[in-house]
């Protein structure tokens, strides 16, 4: 499978997790590229072949990280048809922020879904205040996610 990992991060944790995911996916025979989103990231990136993994934290009061804002705003403005896009979500957050736990990942998931994209499997949440390290569980999760992706067949767009 071709998989692109899209990284939304403020302090760099999601990037570290993505690097581990990349290694794990390669080890499982997939072709992987990691993109740390930036101001140059536009909606056209979703025309790439293959599926996407969002690896994204939450900041402010439930916001997406700053490096995701340009892409999010462009998707909201252009509303491209993403019916052929399949994706998974690894959302990093901290339950100390009770009311907005992982809202960054959740809101981006809702945005993609509203554009017709199809999420494979449930969102995988990670809580920075728990003992579960995202760089440990992220790679395990993503390999299983890729298996579910393969089992789901081709998109029906």
């Amino acid at each position, binding site marked *: 499978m071709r998989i692109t990992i899209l990284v939304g991060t403020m302090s760099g944790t999601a990037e570290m997790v993505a690097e581990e995911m990349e290694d794990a996916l390669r080890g499982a025979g997939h072709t992987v590229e990691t993109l740390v989103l930036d101001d140059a990231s536009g909606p056209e990136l979703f025309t790439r072949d293959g599926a996407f993994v969002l690896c994204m934290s939450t900041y*402010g009061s439930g916001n997406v990280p700053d490096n995701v804002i340009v892409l999010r705003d462009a998707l909201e403005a252009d509303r491209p048809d993403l019916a052929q896009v399949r994706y998974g979500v690894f959302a990093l957050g901290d339950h100390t922020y009770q009311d907005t736990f992982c809202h960054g990942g959740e809101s981006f998931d809702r945005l993609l879904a509203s554009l017709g994209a199809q999420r494979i499997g449930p969102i995988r949440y990670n809580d*920075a205040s728990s003992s579960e390290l995202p760089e440990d569980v992220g790679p395990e999760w993503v390999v299983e996610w890729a298996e579910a992706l393969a089992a789901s067949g081709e998109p029906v767009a």
Partner: protein
Amino acid sequence: MRHVAIIGAGPSGCYLADQLVRAAPDIEVSVIERLPVPFGLVRYGVAPDHQGTKAVARLFERTLGAERVRFFGHVEVGTDLAMAELAALYDAVVLATGASRERKLGIPGETLPGVFGSGAFVGGYNGHPDAPQLRLAGVRSAVVIGNGNVALDVARVLAKAAAEFAGSDLSPVLTAHLAQQPLETIHVVGRRGPAAAKFTTEELAEFRTLARAAVEVADPAALDAAGSAASPNLEVLKGFVANPVQRPVVVCFHFNQQPTAFVGDERLEGVEFEGPAGARQRLAAQLAVTCIGYETTACGTLVPQRGVFANEQGRIGEGRYVIGWAAHGPNGTIPGSRVAAKALAARMAAEVADHQRAGAVGLATLLVQRGVRIVDHGGWQRIDAAERTRAASDRCREKFTSVAAMLQVMAQ
């Protein structure tokens, strides 16, 4: 290979090391830190009950252990070696030394026992080797001066009940000492109006979740007078006023109050303020903590001006750079350090020249000749492991609070 020395292993130094080795395969980095332990204010500033924020240290840990990065702990530039010696060994030197000197108010009574600067108080509860042991006595009322996140941290650490420090790295001894104080009121006092407060809104809102503390605003009318400019902080403060709760400890926010004197005979007894139209008031206090900012200090022969090292987008001069709080003063967060590090790394990767210098190998040789006890990455890992191992069951870590105790671990 091009050799870069970064002075200071705080967030700025660690992010920059990471970004430099990513930006150029021919750059090697030495991160030089005066303490045996890395991470700067992540370890010694960020509050002990915010472990989620301290978790960023895991990234820095990877960086310090990475290929082409070498950690030189317990090495102080300006003391163990001169800036000129360092400059002769590396193609570029970066100051990432932070801003460790707390600003003073410069008003009468500031040296009374019971008055702390934020550096001493925060360093104290975070176990910084240079900080005094926190010894409080009969604190019924505390005054925290300042309207930024450091003031909120100090107020929250005072306001929390002992049980709320489960999972933190606040030492159990200090937790008990704080819990022994007959605390009733914590005043958080700002010089300017509520709309000008520099609190991060989530940190202000966090006071809602405290077990034993209720929030009040001394002059609720000031919240409306603050003007039509809706600020998220104002909304949170109004929420506190609108939904009063009964709790044993009151955290009371005051605005537009200029401190004029700390008063007391042998110890602090109160703090005097001047408000709008010259109105004076005195708040009783057995503890006062001033959280009004920090400035950077000289690094060897390099001397800052007005609390920072003058720079042009991070460049001080030929082969000299500066980043973080040393470059722009005590504002800005950990994520901001990462963004700044990306930009400076790109610039340095493009413009640092290769002078065939000796780099880390030369530095190690010089320091060993001089008898400096270097704590390398492995040494820090042993200290780290020992701190975790000796922690109580409801603590994630029990820090060593002296350099001697840290070095002792290395000797074992």
